[in-house]
């Protein structure tokens, strides 16, 4: 999953800055896609690959900070660049989860370091998101009875208690439990609890 080629997006309304960024990324052999406005970036159908966004603060139309708000914190890590940044602006950007806030002119290494960090963060985010999707698929495959058993197991009940609760035998519960562990591909009870937490599985109501 981590073998995918990362891609750097950049939004800057200044034509020569666009050119300079694309030249820099090209010189280190990095895949890039450059936009001249926030709207253009939003309309673009992003490929499924680890990515980050290099974003100019001052943009015509939707500003960089507004785009950040629109995208939310986990969607894509953002590195801000600006021609004239002030402290409140950078604080706002960092608080909203930006990876870095660079003032032009900046050295390439500062930008590339930030990009590395952003890509790492996006990979982790993506991995988490992918896992969640995977877990959901597995969970969907459970029978209704197995889901009931799973909820009670992760709530910490013993097989005997579960059997009483569901009005069945301990043996049947054991079979369902085995089925749950197998279908969810959980290696241990702890693993199963972690998945249940992420999926938001809770104890069914009495």
């Amino acid at each position, binding site marked *: 999953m981590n073998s995918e080629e990362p891609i750097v997006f950049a939004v800057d309304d*200044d034509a*020569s*800055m666009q*050119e*300079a*960024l694309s*030249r*820099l990324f*090209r*010189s*280190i052999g990095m895949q890039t896609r450059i936009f001249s406005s926030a709207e253009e970036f939003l309309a673009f159908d992003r490929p499924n690959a680890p990515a980050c966004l290099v974003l100019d603060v*001052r943009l015509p139309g939707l500003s960089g900070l507004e785009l950040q708000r629109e995208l939310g914190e986990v969607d894509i890590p953002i590195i801000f*660049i600006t*021609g*004239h940044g002030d402290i409140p602006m950078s604080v706002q950007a960092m608080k909203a989860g930006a990876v870095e806030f660079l*003032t*032009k*002119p*900046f*050295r*390439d*290494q500062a*930008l590339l370091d930030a990009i590395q960090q952003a890509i790492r963060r996006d990979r982790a985010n993506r991995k988490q998101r992918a896992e969640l999707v995977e877990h959901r698929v597995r969970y969907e495959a459970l029978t209704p009875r197995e889901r009931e058993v799973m909820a009670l197991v992760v709530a910490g009940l013993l097989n005997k208690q579960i059997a009483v609760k569901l009005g069945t035998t301990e043996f049947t519960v054991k079979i369902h439990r085995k089925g749950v562990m197998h279908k969810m591909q959980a290696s241990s009870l702890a693993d199963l609890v972690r998945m249940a937490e992420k999926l938001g599985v809770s104890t069914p109501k009495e």
Partner: protein
Amino acid sequence: MSKPDRKLRQLLSSYLVAGLSVGLAVVFTLLSGSAIKDATAFFFCSVMLTSWYGGLWPGVLAAVLSALALDYYFIPPLYALGVGPEDAADMIVFVATAFFISWLNGDQKRAKASISKARDELEASVKERTADLKKVNQQLQLEIAERKTAEQRFLEAQTEIARIARITTMGELAASIAHEINQPLGSIVTTGDACLRWLKAQPPDINEAQLAVEAIIRDASRASNVVVRTRKLLRRGERLRESVNINEVINEVLNWLEVELQRNEIRSRIELQEEVPPVIVDRVLLQQVLVNLIMNAIDAMRTVSDRMKELGVLTEQHDSNPILVRVLDSGVGIDSDDMSRLFEAFYTTKPKGIGMGLTISRSIIEAHGGRLWAERNDGPGSTFCFTLPIGKESEA
């Protein structure tokens, strides 16, 4: 002494006068004997005196006493009361005349009293009104003082606002220029970094490096264009230059600062040469220089108390020489240490100054082809002088 007390005493003394004067009349008449033909003369005197002094009723008393005394001492039968028929007419005439005199005098006295009362009342009411007026006047003075303080505060606030506005505008201008220049600089640095990478690559990509350098050159010219544009923007002000009579501008500025001069009790000595040739200047900038120099002069005299505070503004011009403008003050003067740094940016001797006034003033005057300098006076204070070339547009 209370009022009724005084009245009573007056009344008593009036009746006393009646008794005494009639007594005296008896004595005088007896002493004079046959020397006077008419025995009634002294008694008339007595009635007149009493009624003049005491009014109607003491007069009547004196008349009655006189009649009795006359009857007793001078009308037969002597030394006994009782009037014979031959003297009755005389007696009645005397009594009637005496009563009449009393009434006349009493009436006059009453009239006099009422006039004096009216006068007293008038005086009292005038006094009262005067006191009222004084009070109102005091209040007015107080309000005037308050108003003056408020005006002064307003003026100070206005000056402060103007100063802040200037700084803010400068700050904004600087920010926008910084952004305009940072944009191409950002591209240059990034492209330069990329270029280095192309050159360091194995094998180096000369073609890409060349393209990068070309982009750098293009962006650098763009940055330099920003500078040129900014300079043009600032130079646009120079097109506002017009033919101006310097004396008019000086009078204008003095008018504005009139309040400030009065408030600091500064006398102004304005000696403007008649018929000065026009100068080609930016009127607003010239006003700025004059306001600055005059305000400096005022500031320099603020603490002076042992001598006359005098502001001098003089113009002179001879032949085709530049016009010379001098602004003199009798203030604290400039010590030699300050003198050498006077025109340095951000150098100030004022607690609230920013140290730009003289720096800006000098650059304005120099931009108009003139000079601005300071001199120490022979007496107290200092003089700031500047020149402006006359007639045609002068390029700095």
